[in-house]
């Protein structure tokens, strides 16, 4: 799965996610990626893209949960990490990336690694794996 979240110079946000799904999937199985609010979501406050064991991101409506918790006053970091914690409690694993209208980013994951990168007008670019 790959994804991107962006804040542009007009103060607008967007999210995009794309995946080949799970290896050896059957029965037309679809994960969280194309489900708005689960694997992909953006509004005027935050943009979110998720990756991992999709069934858990669907059951927790993960991307929208980040947006709701942030809108209700949690910091972006707290909102993102608590959603990943909820997924872990259910037995799922994966990660997400989020950017908010102030240009803050959060990239939590509960797997050993997540390929990720970020940068911006006020952030030194970086690429990380573990």
């Amino acid at each position: 799965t790959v994804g991107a979240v962006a804040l542009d110079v007009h103060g607008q946000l967007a999210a995009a996610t794309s995946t080949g799904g799970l290896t050896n999937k059957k029965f037309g199985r679809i994960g969280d990626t194309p489900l708005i609010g689960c694997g992909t979501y953006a509004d005027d406050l935050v943009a979110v893209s998720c990756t991992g064991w999709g069934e858990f991101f669907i059951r927790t409506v993960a991307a929208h949960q980040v947006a709701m918790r942030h809108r209700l006053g949690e910091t972006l970091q707290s909102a993102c990490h608590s959603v990943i914690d909820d997924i872990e409690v259910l037995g799922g694993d994966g990660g997400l990336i989020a950017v908010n209208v102030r240009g803050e980013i959060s990239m939590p994951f509960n797997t050993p690694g997540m390929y990720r990168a970020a940068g911006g007008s006020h952030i030194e670019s970086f690429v990380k794996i573990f």
Partner: protein
Amino acid sequence: MRYTLALHGGAGTLLPEVITPAERKEFTQALDDALKTGLELLKKGSSAVETVVHTVAKLEDCPLFNAGRGSVFSHDGRHEMDAAVMNGADRKAGAVASVSGVKNPVILARTIMEHCPHVFLSGAGAEEFARLHEIDFESEKWFYTRHRYHQWQVAKADNALLLDHTPDDVKYG
């Protein structure tokens, strides 16, 4: 005004000792290229939607990641891909599921967002919509990677499922 871009290439049970220095370099380079391209777009004033679609399409074209070209094999040996895009400014969204042959599913998702009264299309209908809007299709050969084929063989032998970046010995039942 500030601009920011973050991207991911999938999470998984990859471990520092499993990934070779050459693989690490390859992945890092691919992510860095996508980041640089996307930041250039934002710097020039491109919209967030344009930037995330372009960035994800670039990652779809890289065989290292489980999306587009590097997609995994389904049980019956096909590549069934999903994608979505959402614009925070007006909450418009486009999503597609279970399409095969579409070179960049994220571009199809954006086309749905911009030219279709529906949000979410799937399967043969989504592929028909793609052809009507002259979206690029590729042959099965384009989507074949030895690494994903091997993963499929391993997973099939054990009747298991694998996440994107998983050593062969870590499977989900």
